[in-house]
């Protein structure tokens, strides 16, 4: 099956072509042709992972100008796991979108973009070398931009898309540089750590730093967090698939894939851990002050990715990967549950508008509860507890400060998710008449939640199964997560989370309006002040430069002569 899986980037393309050429013709069934793609991907990836085999596709001399100009695609257990996650979440999001986008005139285009994303993401995961990685890496960024800006009439969507493009461009640049500077013959991801490939000036540290910058941009870490909350301007199924479960986890995947290189770069590792912890804590606080439902969950994604980065940074790549796996299920669950309420409220996303409306949607309510419990890590019965405890324990063992901070951070997790749950699902409804329900449209959305609920519970039990099949592709695995995970740090983390949850509930009872709409927050998707300032400065320089092109011929002529004289003078004096 691995041989087939190495071609998995093709699986979504037939659906893309069919849907784009208007098949099936009936607008009601638009997108049906795309449905098989992710399901096939899930099945083949799961079988390949279970078999534990490895296969690769290589075409030498594809790009004669590169250090490693081969086309390399590698289907090993690590990529099989990632592709299975992609196939699992994507299948459910496709199903969900049939309901969510049922009345949208651009439904067909939506599914084409989704197929483009799945194909790009599969390319990214299967990439055996930097050249192929760049194709997938940039491709998911472009699909993300197209989907964030999907509703062009909704204010702020193009701006939000451009923010995502700008942040991604920084990461793409780092990766582009990495591909350009590796010594001749290097570029395959699994051999980047060899002495052959790290003999550049700067060595392993510089290469690792470039990969870290690329990963941080994709996974919204550190100062590059800014685009992800505003990416919520896109349709909710996109928020679940791209901006929670798969694409934003690509940064974590890249770092896990290149863990052997990172091990040679202790300073970069320290930076990864520090940025991860800081992002986890800051984003948890930020989530608490959001007035927009989806942005609240988005900051939670940023925070959870911070936990994964911290795990990579302390040298526990498997813990990061395990959390990536469970997080994909429970965060997609949270988003899709939220989407049902938002769809029922005609697209409104403000917490004040949505207050209490969740109680009309039982699937959504249960789904969000299970997702929240997994997020704060209820032991034994939720997946999140297993993976998050792995991270906290690895942190306590290897970098105690990191471990303690991550452990303490769980109380913030409880606070923000408790607040969202209390306001939307527990509070009495402000205005129940604003809810529109259509069972036909809701049905596919509700169905899509069920497997995710199962995943948010059961994926945690698969820890030792994953360990057995991954081999050494995700680094040396020191702690195999046990089925009964009643360790002290884990219980302490859950206790903190539960306390946070309870406090949030109590606060939302006491002052419901302030809880739902903090004075400082707005529900729009405008750029953060500091991002705005940088963009404004850039545009000021741009329009200043553009004004020099005045159309006045004598100025052009004078400018050219002066510049030529200056160049000649500098050249002659510097010889």
């Amino acid at each position: 099956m691995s041989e087939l899986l190495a071609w998995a980037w093709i699986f979504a393309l037939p659906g893309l072509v069919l849907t784009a050429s208007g098949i099936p013709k009936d607008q009601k069934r638009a997108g049906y042709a795309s449905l098989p793609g992710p399901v096939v991907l899930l099945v083949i990836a799961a079988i390949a992972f279970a078999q534990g085999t490895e296969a690769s596709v290589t075409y030498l001399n594809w790009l004669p100008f590169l250090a490693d100009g081969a086309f390399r695609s590698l289907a090993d257990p690590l990529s099989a796991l990632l592709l299975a996650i992609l196939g699992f979440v994507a299948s459910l999001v496709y199903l969900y979108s049939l309901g969510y986008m049922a009345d949208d005139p651009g439904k067909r285009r939506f599914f084409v973009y989704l197929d483009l994303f799945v194909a790009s993401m599969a390319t990214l995961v299967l990439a055996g070398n930097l050249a192929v990685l760049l194709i997938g890496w940039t491709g998911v960024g472009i699909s993300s931009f197209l989907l964030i800006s999907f509703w062009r009439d909704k204010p702020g969507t193009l701006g939000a898309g451009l923010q995502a493009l700008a942040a991604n461009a920084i990461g793409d640049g780092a990766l582009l540089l990495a591909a350009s500077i590796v010594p001749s013959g290097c570029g395959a991801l699994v051999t980047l750590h060899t002495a052959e490939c790290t003999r550049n000036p700067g060595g392993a540290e510089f290469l690792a730093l470039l990969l870290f910058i690329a990963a941080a941009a994709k996974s919204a870490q550190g100062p590059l967090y800014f685009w992800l909350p505003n990416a919520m301007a896109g349709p909710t199924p996109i928020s679940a698939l791209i901006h929670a479960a798969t694409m934003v986890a690509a940064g974590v995947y890249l770092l896990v894939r290149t863990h052997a290189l990172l091990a040679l770069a202790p300073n970069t590792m320290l930076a990864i851990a520090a940025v991860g912890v800081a992002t986890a804590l800051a984003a948890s606080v930020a989530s608490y002050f959001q007035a927009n439902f989806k942005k609240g969950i988005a900051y939670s994604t940023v925070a959870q990715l911070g936990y994964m980065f911290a795990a990579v940074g302390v040298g526990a790549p498997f813990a990061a990967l395990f959390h990536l796996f469970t997080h994909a299920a429970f965060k997609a669950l949270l988003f899709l549950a939220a989407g049902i309420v938002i769809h029922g409220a005609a697209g409104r996303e403000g917490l004040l508008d949505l207050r209490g409306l969740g109680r009309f949607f039982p699937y959504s309510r249960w789904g969000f509860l299970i997702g929240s419990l997994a997020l704060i890590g209820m032991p034994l019965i939720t997946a999140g507890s297993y993976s998050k405890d792995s991270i906290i324990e690895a942190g306590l063992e290897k970098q105690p400060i990191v471990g303690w901070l991550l452990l303490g951070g769980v109380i913030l997790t409880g606070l923000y998710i408790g607040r969202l749950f209390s306001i939307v699902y527990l509070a009495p409804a402000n205005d129940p008449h604003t809810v529109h329900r259509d069972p036909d449209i809701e049905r596919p959305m509700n169905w899509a939640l069920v497997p995710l609920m199962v995943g948010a519970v059961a994926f945690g039990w698969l820890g030792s199964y994953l360990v057995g099949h991954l081999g050494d592709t995700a680094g040396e695995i020191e702690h195999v997560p046990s089925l009964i995970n009643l360790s002290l740090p884990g219980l302490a983390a859950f206790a903190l989370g539960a306390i946070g949850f309870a406090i949030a509930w109590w606060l939302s009872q006491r002052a419901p309006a302030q809880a739902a709409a903090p004075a400082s927050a707005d529900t729009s998707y405008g750029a953060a002040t500091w991002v705005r300032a940088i963009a404004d400065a850039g545009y000021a320089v741009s329009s200043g430069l553009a004004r020099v092109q005045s159309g006045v011929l004598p100025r052009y002529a004078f400018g050219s002569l002066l510049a030529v004289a200056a160049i000649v003078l500098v050249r002659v004096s510097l010889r």
Partner: protein
Amino acid sequence: MTFVPPNLGMSNHALLAIGVLVLGAIVVLLLVNVISTKATVAVGLGVPFALVAAIVGLQAPLPFALAIVGLSLVATIALLLLPALEAEVPAQVAETAALLLLGTAGAIALASAGDLLQVVVGLETLALSAVTLVAIGRGARPLEAAFKYFVLGAISLGGLLYGLGLIYLGTGSFGFPKAAQLSNTTTLIGAVLVGLGIAFELAVFPLHWGGLDAYTAAAPALAGYVMSASKLAAAFALGRLVLATGVPVAQVLVWVGAVTIVWGTFGALAQGRDLRRMLGYSAVTHAGFIALAVGSGPSGPITAAFYAAVYGTMAMLVFAALATTPTGDISTLGRFRSAALALGLFSLSGIPPTPGFWAKLAVLVVAWQAAGAIPTLIAVAGGVFSVLYYLRPIPEIFAALRASAAERLPVTSPGIALAAALVIILGLFPGLAWTLARAG
């Protein structure tokens, strides 16, 4: 008695291709109005000559094969776009076809010039054709832009000839000066002046003023040709110069290229919704990449030629898509042209797996090896942030795809199809262009 071709230092294949193209220009001028004044006749007469030149180019020695094939194909696409001009300037279609062929002959002469005199002759044939092509078009704006382009080109030619004189003074020959000869200050100044004179055709900062206005104002069916042909030919000529002179001229080009990338990127960012102006600035930025590549060590000129050839195909694609809309208004394009425009913009922006991405990557590799960290970082930044202006119109273009259900194919569709095919082929197999430039 056997015929011995005079040794001009230029390959016989280049001479043959030039001859074919000049013959084509004469045939078009003599016959087209006799048979019919319709543009399709001009296309039918001109395209075979361009294709024959391309086939001749395939046999040419490396790396000139890439120049001859690339320039001939650019001319072919430009000829195929002529029907778009019929609505605008019906009286001048035949002259336009002849100028396209003649300009291409000049471009091939410039690209494969064996000494500096041939550089001047080729460059002027190309430049005068280009200026006239810019002037063709409705209204006063193309004329005004062409006039500025002409005057600035004349000043630049003055600099080039002055440099030529200095080189002759220093070395006693019109050949490309050798690295050892540059220890003479007169020769060094001459070499830098010649380099900048050729770089005017690339439209690098600070010599881009006339080019930028001309690219913006020219009829879209012709603007793509003017940009592509002059860049491709100039990249080759500069490569020849740099390979002869070595570091002193290369360094100048590296830094001129880096500054050009910055200037063009910021300029394009300011353009907002003005697509034509943005594409003009985009041509400046890409010129910066070419100049940076030319100056980047022994593999630099080949890489620059590869980049320029790729740029030529994708610029031709974008302008083929826009050929029938002089204002650059994208909302009236149908499905076919919208898709072509989107592909062209993706490639210009360097989204893998389009050829624009591979070309950019190739430049970064040589720049890192030879030009140093700072120019490379500038190129990386200019490259990745270009998405902010190229992709801005993309959501609108894609959303418009669904609006137009049934449409008639535009008259320019053969040209669009050829350009799109080239872009797709080069995206999937970038090595093909490479094999025309370098063995192995």
